[in-house]
């Protein structure tokens, strides 16, 4: 494999809570190659969502990322997202000062701004809340298209938007084009969100628990949709989930997180085949998945 598209080194994330400082991500490292699907598996609170938000420069809260580095490679250029982090965070009585935290969050956001969408974009859980409630689905897909394909005129954008809605397997793309989020089911909202994200033509798609809260059959459809859309391996994906079967089904490689650390890293094939020595936590997840299949 050539140099990875995304590499994360020793990422540390902390938050202040009422019970004091809590370390939610404790020095994790991983890489994502071109055209690769990396599954991140973990139960809620394992730090998987917040680490992927950090990769996108979207972590908010106090103080957030306190150490480590995220490197994004865009063609020949590469960008170190948290470069100079230690220099910016001033500590007062051992705690990062609130004002400085804001300053570095602005700095990261400025660095990341040209890369959002272009380099990577995301779909989240709660698809209904991911769409602007006041705009039709069509307008929101077109907003992405306008950014990705600047040469298209209005009619062209409209045609492309309907095309995307068709590609995410909407049964009536024309109707969905005119619909608002509150008029669609959760599954349809997630498809619409996937269309909005992919129409932006990102090199990396971050899918953060995209099936959580959906019905079982709809979940299978969404997973199938991801499989189809990524079949050509032209983009990479970070697929975050707590469901080991989804992760195994979609990913090339899998990392398993627990309590803010990576406890396991393996190819999906090895995991499926049961090859090699496993961390006890991974083993229990696999056993649970087998039980699920047996039922």
């Amino acid at each position, binding site marked *: 494999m050539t140099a990875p598209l995304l590499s994360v080194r020793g990422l540390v994330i902390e938050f202040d809570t009422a019970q004091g400082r809590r370390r939610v991500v404790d020095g994790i490292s991983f890489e994502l190659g071109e055209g690769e699907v990396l599954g991140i598996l973990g139960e809620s609170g394992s730090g998987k969502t917040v680490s992927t938000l950090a990769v996108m420069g979207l972590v908010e809260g106090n103080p957030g990322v306190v150490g480590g580095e995220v490197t994004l490679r865009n063609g020949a250029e590469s960008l170190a997202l948290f470069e100079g982090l230690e220099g910016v965070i001033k500590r007062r009585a051992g705690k990062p000062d609130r004002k400085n935290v804001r300053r570095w969050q602005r700095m990261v956001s400025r660095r990341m701004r040209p890369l959002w969408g272009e380099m990577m974009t995301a*779909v989240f859980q709660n698809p209904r809340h991911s769409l602007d*409630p*006041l705009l039709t689905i069509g307008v929101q897909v077109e907003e992405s298209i306008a*950014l990705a394909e600047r040469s298209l005129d209005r009619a062209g954008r409209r045609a492309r938007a309907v095309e995307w809605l068709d590609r995410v397997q909407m049964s009536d793309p024309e109707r969905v084009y005119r619909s608002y989020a509150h008029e669609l089911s959760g599954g349809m909202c997630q498809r619409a969100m996937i269309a*909005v994200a992919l129409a932006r033509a990102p090199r990396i798609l*971050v899918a953060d628990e995209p099936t959580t809260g959906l019905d079982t059959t709809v979940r299978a459809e969404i997973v199938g949709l991801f499989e189809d859309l990524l079949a050509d391996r032209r983009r990479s994906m970070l697929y975050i989930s707590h469901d080991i079967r989804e992760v195994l089904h979609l990913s090339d490689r899998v990392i398993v997180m627990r309590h803010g650390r990576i406890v396991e890293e393996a190819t999906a094939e090895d995991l499926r085949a049961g090859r090699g020595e496993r961390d006890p936590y991974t083993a229990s997840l696999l056993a649970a998945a087998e039980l699920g299949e047996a039922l």
Partner: protein
Amino acid sequence: MRAVPLILAALRRLAGSAGLLIGASFIIYMTVRLAPGDAVDAISPMGTPPEVKAQLAAEFGLDRDPVTGYFAWLARSAVGDFGESLVFSPGESVMAVALPAFKRTVLLSGLTLLAALVLGLGLAILLGEPGPRQQVLTAPAYVLTAAPSFVVAVLFAQGMNWFVQAFVEQGGYETPPWFPIPIYSESLMPYVFAGFAMLAGDGLFMDWFNTLRAELLSLKQAQFITAVRAKGARTVGHIARNLVVPVLSGFSARLPLVLGSVVIVEYIFTLDGAGYVLLEASRARDFPMVVGLSVLFTATIIVVSLIADLVRALIDPREVARGG
């Protein structure tokens, strides 16, 4: 398509507002009938000649039972006939006196609310999320703005007098020739001070500012805004559009409060608006005038909230779906 449910929703709202207007006018009418003893004597000023009393009784249907009396009165009021002023401006029709005054009042209240919106939104954007330092700052501000509008107005009126005596009358203040509007104008000045008194009083501004800041904060943290950022699009348009709905609701929800404080503030600054007329007419027991103005105030609140509802329904598709 979308137009049909929208029109249906609009008609439903319109009918609801008409119902409210009828109900509110009924309450106002029944309040008149509550007058102790002989209603006509109770509501007419001292020394009213008998023929005027008879006319009053006819106008308000006091010679009939409450229900038919109400409808007779409603039929006349519906076409804007609230009778003639007795004391405040004897012989003139109530509407002829009340409407021009009311226009000034609506202008003053509307501009005050608008100024509150602009200032509040500007401050909310500038200050961002509340930190510990701002809590320290907002506590005294909270105390200050808890002051009732009439106390603020009394203080402001004092301040205005002092300002006029100290500067303007000494010739210390002159409008530079290039400035298009007069900085000091005898007729404008009290309105400006009155507007700021209403803005600062009754916690109007502080409450509005807190609401706006909370709305802005929750919007900024909304998942769909994160999604918009993640795809590299500008969030400003999305935030602004989604802010319109709470702003409209806030505007129409605060109007009754402002139309209340405007009454006293106008009186203190002796601005010849509807509030001033209302109080003067009320002291003189100029009954047709007071009733006519009460109906006007109430109707304004109903109409503005109807407009706010309709605009909201145009912007927010969920409003139509909710239908309520």
